[in-house]
């Protein structure tokens, strides 16, 4: 499932963001969308964060939303070497972001399944202890994620 969603052109290896708002904007900016659509998507992601942070702890966050602006389920992965204050459950800065966006109608439950896969991979990465942030290429980061994707 994750393999289908991971794309080298939707990866940020060295995020500059310092805050939650900046991180979400930086992740959204990767997508080939108009400024209007980016703004809509950013607001939708922030609305979800108001309900409680998607920073699941151990340095990982999974911001997500269903939005009118995308045509297909979309995943962006970002790495922050310095870490971002994301109001995570354990208070720790976030180094690895998985931003998942789905279309408003999702009859195949692809969105929830993808979210579940990301949560499972995140737990496997977190279980190892320190999260790697020293990736030299998008492919290396994607391979690292897929190494932890055990169905």
């Amino acid at each position, binding site marked *: 499932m994750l393999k289908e969603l991971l794309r080298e052109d939707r990866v940020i290896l060295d995020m500059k963001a310092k805050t939650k708002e900046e991180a979400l904007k930086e992740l959204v900016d990767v997508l080939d969308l108009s400024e*209007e659509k980016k703004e809509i998507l950013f607001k939708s992601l922030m609305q979800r964060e108001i*309900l409680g942070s998607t920073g699941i702890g151990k340095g990982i966050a999974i911001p997500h939303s269903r939005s009118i602006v995308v045509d297909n389920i979309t995943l962006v992965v970002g790495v922050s070497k310095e870490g971002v204050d994301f109001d995570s459950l354990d208070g720790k800065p976030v180094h690895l972001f998985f931003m998942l966006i789905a279309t408003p109608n999702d*009859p195949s439950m692809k969105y*929830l399944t993808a979210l579940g896969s990301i949560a499972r991979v995140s737990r496997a990465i977190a279980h190892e202890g320190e999260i790697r942030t020293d990736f030299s290429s998008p492919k290396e980061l994607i391979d690292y994620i897929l190494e932890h994707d055990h169905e």
Partner: protein
Amino acid sequence: MTMSKREYLRKLYLLQDLDLLIQQVKDPEYEAKTGLKVEEERIADLERKRNELAKELLKADPVTYQRYEMLKRRYGRGITRVVNHMCTNCFAALPASLTPRDDEVVTCPNCGIILIWLE
């Protein structure tokens, strides 16, 4: 009606975003699959925000608002984007004469969903 159709449609898809979010976090599968738990109180706050927006939209244009609610029950959503002159709900090609209008809410002639053109 005091707000323009464009402004109205922008608020309508914000309402749809809120409806989708509420539906998502109330789905028991959501917590089971993600491990993310949303407090009841926060969901209630979000529902209040949703209902305030719905009230505003109902007052401004009752026909469109009721249409949105009816379509939501039928399709799970009431408003969709036009992409390449195609409805993204039923994927029907739209007649060339169908274009965004400032004076009227435009719906898909095939499935009836409310249409929005985003830049």
